[in-house]
């Protein structure tokens, strides 16, 4: 018998702080698998953001910088401009990327920075205890929308992938989910593409990943996966929004 599935080398051999069933763990593993497959661990620098993934630097074996809330794309820009032959990625949640860090993500994308952005959208603020995120769905109950998100007062959930796809600097942009095995495979492929457009010097690459927050959604982890399909996917459609011809085929 041989091993057909094991911990990727780039994933640290530690217990994460994530809640049971939180799919951050799956996304971390997919990034680690891609880093292993591309053989880039020794020249990759990650930028951790603020939110539940603030401790991401403890979970992947590459070099890391920890950035202020929302500023990861600016920090990553500084790293990449200093070391253009290294692979630089950010790992950001929806509060970080789509609320406090909108200026930084829009302009990094617009400059076509050779960065890979892993954007985790779980429609809620996890770390601070389940408050409304910019991506919280209409009617969704959170700690700061106790009666459900009223879009006439709190604005509409933001579709970052669609917004950023309009920018010429963006080379690869996809929205995926990690709520079932087939989607997990597609998510990994998208993450790989987003790293490859950087390595091939084609421009900015981002993958928006629909993820779960069983704890703050108040759902069993398995039910949370179902909620992604029922509530999130209809508003946040999955698919590739921008693909450069050069790396379309693997």
């Amino acid at each position: 018998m041989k091993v057909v599935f094991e911990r990727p080398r780039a994933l640290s051999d530690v217990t994460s702080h994530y809640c049971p069933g939180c799919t951050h763990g799956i996304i971390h593993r997919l990034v680690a698998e891609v880093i292993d497959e591309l053989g880039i661990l020794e020249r990759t620098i990650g930028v951790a953001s603020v939110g539940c993934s603030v401790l991401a630097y403890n979970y992947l074996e590459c070099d890391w910088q920890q950035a202020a809330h929302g500023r990861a794309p600016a920090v990553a820009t500084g790293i990449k401009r200093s070391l253009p032959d290294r692979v630089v990625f950010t790992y950001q949640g929806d509060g970080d990327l789509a609320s406090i860090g909108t200026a930084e993500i829009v302009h990094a994308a617009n400059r076509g920075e050779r960065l890979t952005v892993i954007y985790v959208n779980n429609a809620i603020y996890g770390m601070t205890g389940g408050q409304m995120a910019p991506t919280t769905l209409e009617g969704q109950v959170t700690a700061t929308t106790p009666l459900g998100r009223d879009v006439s007062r709190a604005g509409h959930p933001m579709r970052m992938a669609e917004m950023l796809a309009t920018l010429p600097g963006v080379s690869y942009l996809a929205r995926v989910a990690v709520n079932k095995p087939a989607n997990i495979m597609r998510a990994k492929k998208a993450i790989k593409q987003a790293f490859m457009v950087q390595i091939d010097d084609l421009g900015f690459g981002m993958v928006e990943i629909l993820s779960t927050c069983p704890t703050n959604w108040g759902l069993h982890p398995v039910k949370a996966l179902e909620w992604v399909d029922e509530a999130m996917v209809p508003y946040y459609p999955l698919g590739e929004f921008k693909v450069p011809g050069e790396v379309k085929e693997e």
Partner: protein
Amino acid sequence: MLGEKVLMKGNEAIGEAAIRAGCQLYFAYPITPQSELPQYLARRMPEEGRVFLQAESEIAAINMVYGAAGTGARVMTSSSSPGISLKQEGISYIAGAELPCVIVNIVRGGPGLGGIQPAQSDYFQATKGGGHGDYRLIVLAPASVQEMVDLTILAFDLADKYRNPVMILGDGVLGQMMEPVEFKAVEPANIPKPWATTGRKGREKNIVNSLYLDPSRLEEHNRHLQEKYKQIAENEVRYDSYRSEDAEVLVVAYGITARIARTAVEMARADGLAAGLLRPITLFPFPADAIAQAAEGAEALLTVELSAGQMVEDVRLAVNGKKPVYFYGRTGGMMPTPEEVYREILKVAGKEVAE
């Protein structure tokens, strides 16, 4: 132009000095009265094969500095007062993560949008924190275009030596004025940076970080920082003095104000009044001992600033109540004339002043 004197604007002289000091990347956002600096480097950095990037905001610029400094490169940003306020979050993170970098503040009047004329009203912000948490910047205050060159070069060395952000605190007059400057041959201190995130090839992974969730580890980190600031205070105090040895009235002023004060001191001396000047060059570390010593023989001290009275608090702490410390300041971009300062010296000395 090595060795020969050239006529340069202060803002541009900082830019050229940064290049001589080996600054590899410069990130900034335009703001008056320092825009000549990004304009100069927009041309010069690419000529040298280095990075110039106009960021989308001061916030982005300081975070780009964080990222690039974390790779071990020499890096600089510049702005003026309202823009420096925006950078405070990033400066706190840079201080917490102990990243070396140079931050230039060509100060203008505030608060708020204030004006675009020179001021020294960011002294508290520069020397007492500005952002959150217990941290210190090394703060250098040039008083001439030549000193803008020399202190910019020194700033990069001190930043690397102490793994600490260094601020050049100038003002709109120095930034805009032209003076002859000399660029001497520079040998930048070559300090190894084994902590830099450059890709982990051949070593364990590095993490640039200011997060310590365990209170005992955060306290330990703070103790380490305070120990470093103490060392900086012991080793890096710089000041200049003019006829302070026998001064009855000791004037304390920095930057452009020190030049006005020096003329006032000369006027007093010409009239037989023993005035002197002590000019802090480092605002942190503050030359408290030098001031205390010079104050011993003096009757009174007079602090002159382009503010409502900020450095004067440090002068009072230095003198510790032993001598009266008076203050004269102008704000909003208004500059005192030497005559004005001389009248203040006379008042402090207890002389009759014709109003």
